[in-house]
């Protein structure tokens, strides 16, 4: 019997292969080989193509651990990731709850679409739009001064909060989306049962709704945290001189300083951090699937 299954699966692969091969060849050439090449290059002294002599070295990794700057920046990026993720939970979860449990029918569908629509529009343009709002003499500045009786100067642009605002704006739809999916799956009768047994709203939230929507929260957090740690365009535009993070240093190695081996090493360290985070969150996600 087992043998029969085995032969069956082998012939399955033979039929499947022609259909799969083009897609996976492409992914290999453009994703998997490059990622492997990055590990290789990160342990070189020079680029082989530069014509200079090169040899293998661990120096690029040593640089990361010996110079405090890189570690500090990585920690700053991790902190930024945590902060942005936290704000996305605080802002996104209630919105997902209202969408899943309060709104009904067509209005729910329409508003849901409106919330996730920006998420597929151009991220660069959305960050730029915040520059319009936050800069001195911008809309926020003008509007507040028109309303308030005293004169204030909004100077949020080119600061840490500006970077956080821009990133939260970019990523909060992810959180709404993932939380909405898990909240929608919670049976309304479960909530009614709890209520009729005398649980208060707060108890329901803490004991039933939040535990059941954990997979959505974790998925959203992973989807937000990972790209934020690797962000460089957002801090550059909204952070100005205060916007130096781990991602911007990697960018510099490739487009300004041209120390590609060091850039590759820094990228690879980031990849390792990302993989650890994804591995830590995957049990929660698998339980949900």
């Amino acid at each position, binding site marked *: 019997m087992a043998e029969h299954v085995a032969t069956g699966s082998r012939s399955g692969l033979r039929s499947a292969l022609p259909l799969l091969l083009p897609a996976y060849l492409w992914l290999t050439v453009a994703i998997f080989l490059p990622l492997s090449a990055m590990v290789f290059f990160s342990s070189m002294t020079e680029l082989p193509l530069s014509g200079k002599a090169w040899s293998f070295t661990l120096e690029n990794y040593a640089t990361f651990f010996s110079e405090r700057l890189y570690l500090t920046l990585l920690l700053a990026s991790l902190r930024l990731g945590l902060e942005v993720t936290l704000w996305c939970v605080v802002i996104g979860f209630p919105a997902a709850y209202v969408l899943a449990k309060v709104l009904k029918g067509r209005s729910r569908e329409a508003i849901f679409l409106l919330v996730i629509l920006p998420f597929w529009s151009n991220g660069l343009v959305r960050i730029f739009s915040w*520059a319009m709002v936050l800069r001195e003499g911008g809309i926020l500045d003008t509007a507040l001064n028109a309303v308030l009786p005293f004169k204030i100067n909004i100077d949020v642009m080119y600061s840490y909060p500006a970077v956080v605002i821009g990133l939260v704006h970019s990523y909060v739809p992810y959180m709404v989306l993932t939380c909405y999916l898990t909240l929608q799956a919670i049976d309304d009768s479960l909530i009614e049962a709890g209520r009729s047994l005398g649980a208060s709203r707060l108890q329901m939230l803490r004991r039933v709704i939040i535990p059941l929507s954990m997979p959505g929260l974790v998925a959203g957090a992973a989807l937000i945290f990972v790209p934020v740690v690797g962000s460089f*365009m957002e801090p550059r535009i909204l952070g100005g001189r205060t916007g130096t993070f781990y991602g911007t240093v990697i960018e510099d190695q490739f487009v300004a300083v041209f120390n590609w081996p060091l850039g590759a090493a820094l990228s690879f360290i980031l990849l390792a951090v990302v993989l650890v985070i994804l591995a830590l969150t995957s049990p929660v996600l698998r339980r949900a699937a």
Partner: protein
Amino acid sequence: MATTRILEWLGRLYIWLLLAFLYLPIVIMALMSFNVSPFYQLPFEWTTEWYASLWQNDQLISATSNSIEIAVITTILCTALGTAASLAFYRYEFRGKKFLQALLFPPIAIPWLITGTAMLIFFFGVGIGRGLFAILLGHVALALPYVIVVVSARLQTFAPELEEAARSLGANQWQVTRRVTLPWIMPGVIAGGLFAFAVSFDQFVVSYFLSTPGQTTLPVEIYAAIRKGFTPEINAVSTIIIVVSMALMLLTARFFKFGGEK
């Protein structure tokens, strides 16, 4: 009951506040593209001069046509390769299938900064170098997993008996695929294709690392312009982009229900 009413009302208000947070900056940016002052000064005075001056900007026009060209080719390649792979996953059982499916996640989950720099190093190392071809290689790889996921989701609703029936009536594999399976999954294929177009057209990070001064895409050109200083022309071109990509997504939503609504 009264508390429930109030809470529901607060909930609705909250959603509208969130929508304001999401859309106000975009609306303001768009309004500024119609304002006379080059320094975004109020009061607002209507003009379309910034849009007119876009037509004089050859660099921007060539970057735009590059972007569209790459997005169209990416769409065609991704729908073809992605649909084929989805059909293979749907039809056949084989060892390593789970592994191959899991391999679709790295391109989605790994930050584009890492993928982009890795591609730059590798393409440079093997002699492909930078430029439009390298950008196309990268875009197809980034969009492919999305297409496979979307088309596979649509295939879940397809009854395998239909293929069986067609086969027992004497149709060969190609006829079955073309006449029975493809028409059914067409909405998924179209949605996947639109996704691919959006991923490519909006892609900045990977294009940024793979572009050269002459061979670049629109988002890369905009980033360079933003770093030089803000001008209403950037607002104008940004407004066009945002309208195009939102229209695309609305179109996609017609073919593919997000969030598994019944």
